[in-house]
């Protein structure tokens, strides 16, 4: 899980902005739009700030109120989902 997290990269074609409802993301290459709603949006913002895996898990555990194990699994699922959508590499 940690290595899955640490390998992520936001492609150059991706732009995003923080909205009240979450994070609005656009892919200039595919011309597609996405909205990542909270709490996934919180994960996105923590990730793009470049926090370590340990810090990200700590922050998201506090934000979501889940256990550390559940949080790790949830982060893993979000990352996989975003990779499939090509908003991260």
């Amino acid at each position, binding site marked *: 899980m940690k290595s899955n997290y640490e390998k992520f990269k*936001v492609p*150059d074609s*991706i*732009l*995003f*902005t*923080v*909205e*009240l*409802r979450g994070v*609005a993301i*656009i892919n*200039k290459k595919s*011309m597609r*739009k996405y*909205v990542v709603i909270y709490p996934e949006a919180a994960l996105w913002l923590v990730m793009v700030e470049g926090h370590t895996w340990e810090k990200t898990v700590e922050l998201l555990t506090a934000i979501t109120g889940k256990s550390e194990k559940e949080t790790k699994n949830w982060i893993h699922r979000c990352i996989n989902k975003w990779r499939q959508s090509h908003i991260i590499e």
Partner: protein
Amino acid sequence: MANLSITTVCNKKCVYCFAYDATDDRGKSHMSITTYSKALEYLERSGINQVRLMGGEPTLHPQFISFLKMALDRNFDLMVFTNGLMPIKVLDFLESINHGRISILLNMIHPDEGNPNGVLKQKDVISRLGHLVVPGINIYSKQFDLDYIVDYFHEFELQKEIRLGIAHPMLSRNNVFLHPKDYSYIGEKIIELKKKMVAIGVNIGFDCGFVPCMFPIESFELLKEELKKTGNCCLPLIDFLSDGTIISCYPLNNLLKIEMDDQMSSTELVKRFEIELELFKDVGIYPHCSTCPLFKTRCNGGCMAFRIQRFMH
């Protein structure tokens, strides 16, 4: 609607200028008569009956008078966007033709701007062309004073209209612009101005980028006419630059430039710009726009340049 930026030359250096890339000193150029003719043909083809001449300062184009005559001969109405610091021969010409089909949108120099000669020159222009003149004010800071314009209506015979614009950010450089966080503050000032304008029978017209939420709901009745257009005018415009390229508006000028084509109509051009801007249409100038009940009904979210600027990598 389409604007023709016939020259990049300007004799003012407004801090908020959002036509700067079209007026860059490094590349001064005037629109050729061939390009101008093609632009007029485009307007005719697109069913647009008004020629809107901009710059730079359009009156500094060496063939400005010929350009006016060409447009009038082809039965266009004309609107000239000027700072008023125009050559005497242009002023004499405009005064002599006294044409009902010409309007002068005069970008006002604020009395506190430190340009007393400019203010005097503008007053001279207004005293001679007042019946053609619509004063225009570009609001570029929170501290902006609007009240000075009331005196002009007492002193001169102007058209019974005033145009208010908001200075918008340019994507290609850092100009001074009014930040959306200050819109509601300016909205209060506009309400005060509106009350004074109502008293003297002057209408206010809003340029692009105004949004309904910059005004308190209780003022909606007072601003009923202005609000009919507010929030929905940030659609792709067509701006012809002096070199013959076409952009959708000045602040977005580095986003997409299209070479003028002899067959192209406004519908096709607007469609091409809309495709380019489509990605950014789901956000507004504020993070809460996309959850606002007015979004995409009465308001499209404000200036597209600011909306694009909100995005980061």
